[in-house]
């Protein structure tokens, strides 16, 4: 059975259709990439899956059970964690405290949460910044922080909104390695990514969005040959890259 299934998800904002009739499944253990130009509706899709927005039509299923109208915190407790494209650190709290908020999903105990948070910070390579305030971290570090926070909830499914966006070139390989490690350890991931090389290399399967519609769904090699994808997005991006 699929871990995540979207059935005909549609979302409108005023007259603009952000997502139109999007259906796909994610099997346990998969690493799925989502690509598409700006405004294609990628982040909206994450919002629909995680309860931050309500679809006008369609359904979201986890383990085959509908969760469409659940609140974000309920979705999180069902084992789905996410990051945000525009980072949302708890600015006035330390890195450690940030991650503890995630860890508290698994325990009431403060010391236990602290231990789990330390582990998560180590895992993303932020161990030495544990007591720094989140507002004092660089963009790359905040990205890692957000990842650690999500991981600390011990999700089954992790949705990453732009792993490498806004991060300097030198940090990208480290982040990619991190994602690969997580996947190797059995985590299911759905990753929105602008950097074509990164995503083609990383993902087992790719969903391509354009103007709110799902125009392709398949392995990277196939996606790269899909003329609709090439026309819509890859052509231009590939040339630029």
């Amino acid at each position, binding site marked *: 059975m699929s871990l995540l299934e979207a059935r005909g998800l549609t979302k409108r904002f005023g007259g603009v259709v952000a997502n139109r009739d999007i259906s796909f499944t994610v099997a346990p253990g998969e690493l799925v990439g989502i690509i598409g130009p700006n405004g294609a509706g990628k982040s909206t899709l994450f919002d629909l899956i*995680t309860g*931050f927005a309500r679809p006008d039509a369609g359904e979201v299923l986890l383990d085959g059970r509908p969760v469409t109208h659940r*609140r*974000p*915190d*309920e979705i*999180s*407790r069902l084992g789905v*964690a*996410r990051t*945000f494209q525009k980072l*949302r*650190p*708890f*600015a*006035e*709290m330390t890195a450690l*405290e940030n991650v*503890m*908020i*995630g860890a*508290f*999903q698994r325990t*009431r*105990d*403060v010391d236990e*949460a602290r231990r789990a948070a330390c582990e998560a910070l180590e895992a993303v390579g932020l161990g030495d910044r544990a007591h720094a305030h989140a507002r004092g971290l660089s963009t790359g570090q905040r990205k890692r922080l957000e990842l650690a*926070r*999500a991981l*600390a*909830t011990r999700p089954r499914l992790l949705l990453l909104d732009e792993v490498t966006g806004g991060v300097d070139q030198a940090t990208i390989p480290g982040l990619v390695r991190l994602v690969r490690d997580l996947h190797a350890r059995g985590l299911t991931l759905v990753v929105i990514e602008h950097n074509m090389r990164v995503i083609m290399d990383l993902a087992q399967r790719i969903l391509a969005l354009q103007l709110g519609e799902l125009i392709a769904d398949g392995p990277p090699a196939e996606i790269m040959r899909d003329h609709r994808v090439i026309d819509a997005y890859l052509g231009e991006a590939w040339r630029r890259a």
Partner: protein
Amino acid sequence: MARLPGLAAAALLAALLAFPLVVTLPFPRHVMIMIFLYATLAQAWNLLAGYCGQISLGHAVFFGTGAYTSSMLVKTLDLTPWAGMLAGAVLAAALSQVIGYPVFRLQGHYFAIATIAVGEIVYTLALNWDLIGAARGLYVPIKRPDSLSNFQFHESKQAYYYIALALLLLAVAVTRRVERSRTGFYFRAIREDALAAASLGVAVTRYKLRAMALSAALTALCGTFYAQYVLFIDPESVFPLSLSILICLVAVLGGVGTVWGPLVGAAVLVPLGEGTRILFGGTGKALDLVVYGALIMLVSVLQPAGLVGLARRLGRP
């Protein structure tokens, strides 16, 4: 200040406990009682606003609820005010959920103004509700002799002093406990970014309501204390917007989101208020309030983190 050593805290507590034994004049005792009362109120407000980030400008609602509940129970059922105090706290907590559930959907200024609106509604209703004395107010029936169970002490303010101190210690203990628990971490996460908190599994509304219930109950306890201390209440003294604002002001002056802030704020603001009232007040000239207003502006411009923040900054070269 943040980690005031245990020894210093113990010394401070000992000094506070000894104070009425040394100082027997009523006025200094009264000032201390008012400091404790406002510190407790500010601490209660701090739980909701400072830690959880929900800036309520309507906390007088809960203060008045506490004051009226116990006074009415004393008056009609001849119940001991202690039972009334408990009932008032429970009622205020329940009321806070009724108010909070819809109002927590609002954010920022919309939330703050909605709490003003709720406060004004309650104030106006109290002014017109004959059962509770409407605008004429309510006299708490005088009970003799002075006793703890009567919660009235006409001979000396000493008992009031210790009760007010106990209330403050209760509020500090509750805050400390919350601060060091998962609930406290969740409060702060909600204050920083409610959406991010939700994405990590924090049931945002439930925790906001929890903060509000705690805050309202503690505030109501103070209301009962006030009623038993002054023995007369009316909407103008326990429900007005100016009281709601004063409560936050004490916390803001001291520094929100810290255990010590409300204490420091009350310790500065209350004597200042009493002092300027003696110096300039009584003439009907409101000069004390002029100074007070100027001070508020000064604090918000110079040091939004409050006096505790200022002390921290000075202590860290």
